[in-house]
């Protein structure tokens, strides 16, 4: 089971060096835990869950035939990056000034940290 308060605190630790928000959401885009501006997170989660699914469908195409690993989106106002962890999605967003490589590294190390605990949740 998830400890919601503890999870939020863990996510909060990523919010340094220009990162505005970190969140965990399920496949329909509803937040499970988040840190940062909540309303903004909610919107980003809903949109990115949709984007992920669109790409996921494409990746099943026999011509591509490769699993989706990370989705990175560069916007006018900032950057968003998403990764799947145990059928849930981890997402980090920041302003434009943060290098994409740093953002990706942070996301991957957070995913690695959460994976052992999240994998125990069997639905």
């Amino acid at each position, binding site marked *: *089971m*998830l*400890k*919601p*308060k503890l*999870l*939020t605190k863990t996510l909060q630790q990523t919010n340094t060096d220009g990162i505005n928000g970190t969140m965990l*959401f*399920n496949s329909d885009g*509803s*937040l*499970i*835990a*988040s840190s940062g501006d909540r309303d903004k997170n909610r919107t980003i989660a809903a949109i990115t869950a949709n984007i992920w699914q669109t790409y996921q469908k494409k990746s099943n195409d026999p011509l591509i035939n490769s699993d989706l690993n990370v989705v990175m989106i560069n916007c006018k106002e900032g950057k968003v990056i998403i990764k799947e962890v145990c059928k849930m999605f981890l997402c980090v967003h920041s302003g434009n000034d943060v290098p994409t490589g740093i953002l990706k590294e942070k996301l991957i190390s957070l995913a690695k940290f959460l994976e052992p605990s999240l994998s125990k*949740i*069997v*639905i």
Partner: protein
Amino acid sequence: MNPTKRKILLIGRSGSGKTSMRSISWEFNFKFMDCGGQDSYLENFFGSQRDRVFRNVEVLIYVFDVTRKDTEKDLNYLESSVFALSEFSPESKIFCLIHKVDLIPEEERENVIESYKEEIMKFLSKFSEILENPLKVTCFGTSIWNETLFLAWSKIVYSLIPKIQLLEEHLHSFCQICDAEEVVLFERSTFLVISASSSKTYQDIHRFEKISKFIKHFKLSCNKAHSPFQSMEIRNRFFTAFVDSFTANSYILVIISDPQIENAAISLNIQVARNHFENLVQKTRGNDDNALVI
């Protein structure tokens, strides 16, 4: 119906209010036996039908009418019941409901109930030496017009569930893991409270009954609209409440007061806990096919 299925026996003299209190517990999971209250019927139960009536009884509920002054007759019937039970269902529990307390002026109510209880207990204590098994008797003052009957029935349901302490412990740890303010388990068809775990004390001690009534009404209207009730979420600035179907025979209510906690996290936790509790219930049930399973 399975002939060995255990039953709840409801006994009381005519006009004591047995049948009207049944409305709260209709379609219960147990075989329910509402014994007619006319004296001639009662004589029969203790006479020729004794064996049939008192076999496989899990719980006997004896209903006293508090407004009646001739308690002697009631006590005599109770005595016969106690002896019949010790013969045919020695493990059974006895609940005495002192009914219609709403007819007593409020300022006297407590005293009247207490003295009534005392009278019953004193009467029953005489038999404790004769009988092999110790009597398990509990008394309640009840009325169909307030929460007392709901409370009494909840206690009765509680007593029927095997290994309830284990369930309670798990419910309590669920409450803590979720950071929930309160978690309540309701029986599915009657919406009586099976068990509750709270992390703070509330002012309103009758809240369970109100919630139960409210959800029962909502469930009924859902059925009218041909879309059976599954779950609901209520969120306002003070709390978030989840009502969701839980194990085969129960619903769960989770109250969260921390606005930082997301709904999806709670839904997820309820889903995970559901599997856990299903397994737990299977275990507590053991080999007893007739036990009340939540």
